[in-house]
């Protein structure tokens, strides 16, 4: 991969070194991806369906560990720590994940959903601490005013967009280093999508965000940098404006202009 001009801070918060992911021996859904992600940026991962975006994203927080046949190789360095050698539970607390379908825990109240990360990690908090975390997390996803009166209701009682913001709050509550999002708005209506995009722009002040998206205009609107993947390979990783105006690679250009994908 040539000429990488990435909008950056000082040092990368996440480094991928020859990361590969494989669902069956000999075939690679992600093939030797090497790149750096900088703190307080939004990075969009784009590419045609099946090119390995989700596989790459899920390698970062060790989700592949749930399925023994999936193999991840290479090196992933998050905040100076070797992810593939760490305790996966610790990795996942450092790297929050938001899924395509909003998935608040159906038996928990809104309040408990926000605190789920603490409960599930057996971290006991005082009532005051809990209240603070819940309020702050919900504030930061712009949900506080909407739900503060109905905190004891089930999470599934909210609208799809609200549920997704609740899921983001749930991930933020653990104060992760990085937020991994796999098409977080593709199940939502345009207004909710809009809200979440605005939210992400605010959140990048504090967090680092990697977002897989099929929506090119979304990538253009919110991301600082964009990655274009094709057949498991990282074809291009650039400053987003640069990529959308002057893509380096022919494939990228074809994808962005709708020739394929």
């Amino acid at each position: 991969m040539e000429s990488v001009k990435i909008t950056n801070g000082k040092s990368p918060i996440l480094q991928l070194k020859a990361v590969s992911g494989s669902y069956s021996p000999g075939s690679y859904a992600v093939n030797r991806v090497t790149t750096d992600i900088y703190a307080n940026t939004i990075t969009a991962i784009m590419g045609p369906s099946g090119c390995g975006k989700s596989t790459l994203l899920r390698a970062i927080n060790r989700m592949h560990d749930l399925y023994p046949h999936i193999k991840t190789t290479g090196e992933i360095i998050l905040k100076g720590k070797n992810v593939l050698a760490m305790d996966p539970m610790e990795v996942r607390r450092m790297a929050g994940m938001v899924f395509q379908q909003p998935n608040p825990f159906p038996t928990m109240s809104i309040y408990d959903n926000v605190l789920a990360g603490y409960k599930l990690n057996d971290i006991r908090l005082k009532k005051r601490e809990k209240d603070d975390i819940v309020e702050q997390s919900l504030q930061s996803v712009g949900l506080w005013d909407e739900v503060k009166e109905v905190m004891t209701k089930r999470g599934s009682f909210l609208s799809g967009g609200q549920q997704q913001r609740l899921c983001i709050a749930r991930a933020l509550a653990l104060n992760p280093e990085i937020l991994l999002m796999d098409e977080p708005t593709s199940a939502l209506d345009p207004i909710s999508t809009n809200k979440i995009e605005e939210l992400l722009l605010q959140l990048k002040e504090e967090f680092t965000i990697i977002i897989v998206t099929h929506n090119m205009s979304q990538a253009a609107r919110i991301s600082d940098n964009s990655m274009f993947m094709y057949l498991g390979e990282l074809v291009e990783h650039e400053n987003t404006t640069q990529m959308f105006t002057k893509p380096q690679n022919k494939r990228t250009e074809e994808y962005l202009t709708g020739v394929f994908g």
Partner: protein
Amino acid sequence: MNYPKITYTGWRKGKDKTAFVLVCLFSLITMFPLFFILWDVVSKGYKNFNLRLFTEVTPSSMDAMLARMNGEPIPGGILNGITGTVLIVGMAIIFSVFLGLFIGIYLADNRGKRFAGVVSYLTDLLQGMPSIVIGIITYAWIVKPLSGYSALAGSVALTIMMLPMIVRSTEETLKMLPVAYKEAGLALGSSYTNVVFRILIPSGFGGIFTGILLAVSRVMGETAPLMITALGASVVNWKVMEPTSAIPLLIWDFYNDPNLVELIWSSSLLLLIVIFLLNWIAKIVARKWKV
């Protein structure tokens, strides 16, 4: 392209009608036994279905005969059977829920593994095992070595009967839950155990609880395996290692004693009411507790 035209001719309509009538008829026929059972049990059982049934133990045959000759009602109830059923079934619930949850969780999460396949197959076998065989096995395992009939032995027999039902309902319920819940939990850094017990089991509570209730209602009326394990007793017994009565055991005793035969009906009525209640609650829980 021209699609073939689907005609709805008189002949087809006629066939439909006939099938409909037949289905209704057959359903009615299968309902008859149920109606007769209900009618018999209620009309013959209501007479002795009173406070005494719940507060007094089974009378001796002699007392019952004297009462009958004097035209008095049966001088006793089935308290010893009720407490025995509570004790035996209660212990069986604890054992089988504990074991069944773990096996069900294991099976739901290890599809395709060799050992899981074996466990699953054994569960099916157990489900089809005649209850008397289970009773005899329990006799050989528990009653013989401990040299005595006991409530514990009875509950072990019922546990074996309930286990496959609870395993299956747990397994099926967990399998139906979206994988997203599990992944979301683990993505928060949770241990697998916490995901199972704080997210999956509560989310599948309706299905699992329904399975437990149905299993209970199935073994409530079991007689054969209890005869050779719990044996029966004419007094109220709460001791786990002592012979203990149960409602179905009493019904069998009453059947063999012309002086007590009237109590069959009120005992059966009680059993039926409890079983209907359990099924009814199971339905409501299954409907209300949908995720």
